[in-house]
């Protein structure tokens, strides 16, 4: 095996990191935590992944990947297929469109922007789910999920930033 081939393999693997991290976040939605009550308030983990990588490495989180992550999230959670695909596509689209804002402002502003985007995303999810299922979910459940999502955003972002620093420095 020549070093160039190894180097190319290494590069390909590294370029897949944003997708794989987001896939890991999809899988995280299904890992049984066995924490009493957590199942009711567990947040949408992949949303944070799509948001982060769309800001910092949109080249490695193309539209197609966001769509695929969404479809996988729908399959794993057994929600109507296509809802999360649409939502992640929209998040990716909006974030890339406003990328300069995210890159020039400090973290609290990103957090605030994520708070606004997450409200929109969860609202859209609620509406589409109600349309496809014919019955609506109690918004109170989503409110708690939203609170937990906001609380988990900083630590999850730190982990992803660290991953980016270590694995994607030269990519």
């Amino acid at each position, binding site marked *: 095996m020549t070093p160039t081939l190894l180097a190319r393999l290494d590069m390909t693997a590294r370029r897949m990191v944003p997708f794989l991290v987001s896939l890991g976040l999809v*899988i995280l*939605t*299904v*890992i*049984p*935590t*066995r*924490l*009493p*009550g*957590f*199942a*009711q*308030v*567990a947040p*949408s983990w992949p949303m944070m992944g799509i948001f982060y990588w769309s800001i910092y490495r949109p080249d490695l989180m193309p*539209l*197609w990947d966001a*769509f695929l992550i*969404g*479809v*996988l999230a729908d*399959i*794993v*959670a*057994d*929600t*109507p*297929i*296509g*809802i999360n*695909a*649409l939502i992640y*596509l*929209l998040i990716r*689209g909006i974030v890339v469109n406003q990328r300069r804002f995210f890159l020039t402002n400090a973290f609290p502003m990103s957090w605030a922007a994520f708070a606004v985007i997450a409200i929109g995303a969860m609202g859209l*999810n609620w509406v*589409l*789910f109600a349309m*496809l*299922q014919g*019955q609506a*979910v*109690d918004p109170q*459940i*989503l409110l708690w*999920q939203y609170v937990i999502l906001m609380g988990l955003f900083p630590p999850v972002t730190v982990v992803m930033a660290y991953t980016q620093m270590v694995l994607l420095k030269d990519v």
Partner: protein
Amino acid sequence: MRIKALGATGRLTFVKALFHRFAFAFLVCAAFILMVLGKNEGVVVERTRVIVLDVLTPVFDVLSRPTSAVANSLEFFRDLTNLRAENERLKAENIRLTHWHTVATKLSGENAVLHQQLNFVPEPDPAFITARVIGDVASGFGQSLLLGAGSRDGVRKGQAVVSGEYLVGYVSQVADHVSRLLLLTDINAHLPVSVDSTHTRAILSGDNRDMPRLDYLSGNANIQVGDLVVTSASGEAFPPGLTVGKISGVSDGIYRVAPAVRRDQLEYVSIVDYGLGGVQSFQDKPPAPPRRGKGADAKGVDPN
């Protein structure tokens, strides 16, 4: 005309460029198409779901083990701190149970005699499969668990899932090596039940909150908080009398039921085949009733 002049590679590049330009619109359309296809529960969508689950199963299986270990050791330490109180409680319970044991022994003997006098044919014990919980879908839009047994192990859609003596839910999706347990709290879960003390029949409907509600109560007999809710025989889904939970409260005329099983305590469950229909979704056509008349007679059914 211009495209034709481009040649094969040129055309490919053109299509690629077109895709890049309209990728967003194209994928948004694709998402809507998927939603419509999924709404009609198309075979392709269902098949895709099942295949993806099967592929991801080994990952779920491995990742769910450490969390079980952590949860078990946490429980161990919690138990240690509660040892004294637990001991008191068990002593009190033991006194109560000793009394019930005497009663049960007496009744069991009486029952055996009555069975004998009536030439009663006992029902066969149902077949069951024990499966590990490998996934817990935690989302406001659905409440289900993934179980590490699938169609290869004999799991079928609609079968009851119990933990000990209590009903947890039923199987809603089956892949080769994994199946989905729809919890009674899920917005799609509907189950015929009856309130044990008053024999009031109702449909237990989930709405993704932790306590499902009772719909379509037959009459409104005097239901009390704490009354036991069990499966009813209507619909021939499950055998009657399986414990589901207890009435936890009533608000705005809607009774809510606290499930007997807490999902965070589930590590292993039993998938039981009672030989009945189980709960099927509305999309699935019910099996055709056996045809009577000429056809059946012609196939050699002897009326004697």
